[in-house]
């Protein structure tokens, strides 16, 4: 418990000076990033577009965890379970009920929100590392639950389900990959704006009050139980959307895709990106997608060890992750301007 809270509190101190804007990027920077995200796919290969799509998808999942941990101070190692539920919801609806892929996404969000909210209820009694353990149990159980015999008719058991990739609508002259990228980008932007507003709203302030001091928050009249479960629900819902998009982009769901390793990767992405700094989620996602590939190209047999060393370096040099780098950059720019 103490260890967990320390990390959050530590992360919090660095942003104390500018609480409202600390969780986001400035308008100018945001627009530049957005323009890059819009333009780049027109000039690169389909494979790169696919990787960018995966980047956005994992970024969403890390963002969801960031709202939960960076926002409300709760820990979760069970995000892979929500991701799996989202992925399977989309896959089953698309393949068995012929539902349009775009429609499956709000359905996944709703189902995962409910699932996360319900899971958050009993988990409320736990905090810090104990909560992390409870969610860990969820993550280990999920792949096995998906293999259950009576669900096999729907889930395809261990064989998984193959999902058909959607074509661009209205006869747009776009490859499937490119269309899916822009679709994912639109969803990502919507969710990002929603998250930023959520954290700036009354609910967001309640989340952060709970994160900083639960007792103080409750004595100020914040309904701790409600907001904690709400944070869980919102986080699960967003993770579910990421899962849905992931299933459509990868075109395949199987229990082996959603093991505890995924949950740990997402957690890692959050820490590398900077706990509580929303844009960092996407930097974290880039880390968990590209760094293992880099490690592999350095040494095939020792890829795990190389990855470990790289991770250690990042944590040692910039313990607050990408946010720290961004803050340093900002200060540097500020100094240059003064001169």
């Amino acid at each position, binding site marked *: 418990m103490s260890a967990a809270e320390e990390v959050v509190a530590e992360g919090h101190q660095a942003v104390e000076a500018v609480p409202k804007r600390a969780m986001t990027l400035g308008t100018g920077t945001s627009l530049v990033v957005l323009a890059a995200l819009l333009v780049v796919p027109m000039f690169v290969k389909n494979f790169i577009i696919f990787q960018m799509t995966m980047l956005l998808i994992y970024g969403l999942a890390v963002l969801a965890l960031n709202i939960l941990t960076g926002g409300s101070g709760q820990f979760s190692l069970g995000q892979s379970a929500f991701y799996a539920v989202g992925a399977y919801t989309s896959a089953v609806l698309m393949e068995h009920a012929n539902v349009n892929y775009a429609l499956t996404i709000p359905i996944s969000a709703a189902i995962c929100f409910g699932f996360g909210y319900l899971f958050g209820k009993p988990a409320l009694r736990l905090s810090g590392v104990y909560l992390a353990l409870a969610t860990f149990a969820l993550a280990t159980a999920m792949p096995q639950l998906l*293999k259950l015999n009576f669900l096999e008719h729907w889930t395809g058991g261990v064989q998984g389900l193959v999902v058909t990739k959607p074509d661009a609508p209205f006869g747009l002259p776009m490859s499937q990959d490119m269309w899916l990228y822009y679709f994912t980008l639109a969803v990502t932007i919507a969710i990002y704006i929603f998250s930023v507003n959520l954290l700036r709203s009354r609910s967001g302030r309640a989340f952060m009050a709970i994160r900083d001091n639960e007792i103080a928050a409750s004595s100020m009249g914040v309904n701790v139980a409600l907001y904690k479960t709400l944070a869980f629900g919102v986080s699960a819902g967003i993770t579910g959307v990421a899962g849905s998009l992931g299933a459509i982009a990868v075109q395949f769901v*199987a229990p082996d895709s959603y093991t505890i390793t995924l949950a740990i990767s997402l957690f890692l992405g959050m820490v590398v990106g900077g706990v509580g700094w929303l844009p960092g989620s996407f930097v974290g996602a880039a880390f968990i997608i590209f760094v293992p590939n880099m490690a*592999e190209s350095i040494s095939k047999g020792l890829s795990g060890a190389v990855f470990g060393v790289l991770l250690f370096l990042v944590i040692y040099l910039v313990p607050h992750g990408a946010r720290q780098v961004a803050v340093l950059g900002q200060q540097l720019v500020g100094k240059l301007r003064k001169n």
Partner: protein
Amino acid sequence: MPAMHVRLGAFSAALVLAAALSTAASAQKKYDTGASDTEIKIGNIMPYSGPASAYGVIGKTEEAYFRKINAEGGINGRKINFITYDDTYSPPKTVEQARKLVESDEVLLIFNSLGTPPNTAIQKYMNSKKVPQLFVATGATKWNDPQNFPWTMGWQPNYQIESIIYAKYILKNHPNAKIAVLYQNDDYGKDYLKGFKDGLGAKAASMIAIEDSYEVSEPTIDSHIVKMKATGADIFFNITTPKFAAQAIKKNAEIGWKPLHFLNNVSASIGSVIKPAGFENAQDIISSQYFKDPTDAQWKNDKAMIGWNEFLDKYYPEANRADASVMYGYIVAQGLVHVLKACGDNLTRENIMKQAANIKEFEPAGLLPGIKVNTSASDFAPLSQLQLIRFKGEHWERFGEILSGDVGG
């Protein structure tokens, strides 16, 4: 400046001429992405890390084998450029790596990617891209489906072929037996079970006294064995992975249940199953095999085995020679070399599949005597023969003739 222009013009004219000449000269040579006069790019995906990392040895053996081929001059003068990636046995990662191989590295084909879920994840993609997914490293039966997936081909004898062979043996020699089946509750276990029931045909319902399944996550399967003994079955078909197979053999001996024991070849390893279970407990167990067990003393002076040892000494000295995966990789790599040689100078993806579906009586070094690789336009199961083996003393003894049973997915 004008002089410069003239020179440029002459230069480009020469270029055009040269290009025209070279196309004329290479009219016989046809290439798809990934092949050229000097190089053939082959992609591969293996679980070098993660839960199935023990199989990563296969990729390393293949890499070593292609190094040997390149050192000996390559294939029709072309060097093999073997690009192998880690997917940690996670299907989304497999998709990423397969797309990287096809779209970024631009390989000619993907060879021997490992595992049923990872290969299922990329099958549709590979077929829509029309890139060969050749000789996949999984025993599932569904890879033999040329009608729906003409760009995907299996390699090893699949699970159903094997259990059909056991079923045939039982019908012939023990037609009135009562059979107990224990299987792992996943695609692999169910594939075996299906083949077994198909093999027994109409008699399956009356002969099988009990079919019991276990989960990989169970620590021990002792209770299942006790339950099966209670049915009074006199034949036991053991569809388990190595750890559980050793447990079953041990428990059988402990509680004094002595049925005729069929063990799937997944667990036929002496080093990892029989030895830990105890040689005295494993006598007379029947299994099947298609390649030579390197730990078996009878192959000590065998020509293929000597060649294998020389290859390992020179190109992969750190290999564990008791590991069956090393032999597996050695054999399947020979399969790819055979196909590439057969393609000659026509290295198009279409021709690769055509040649892969036209292997006749090919005998890579390391297979049991009499077992051959055969394919056709309607048979995408290259290896479909096995020989029964029985455990005697401290090693497997082959008996009976080479058996086969082609089935499709």
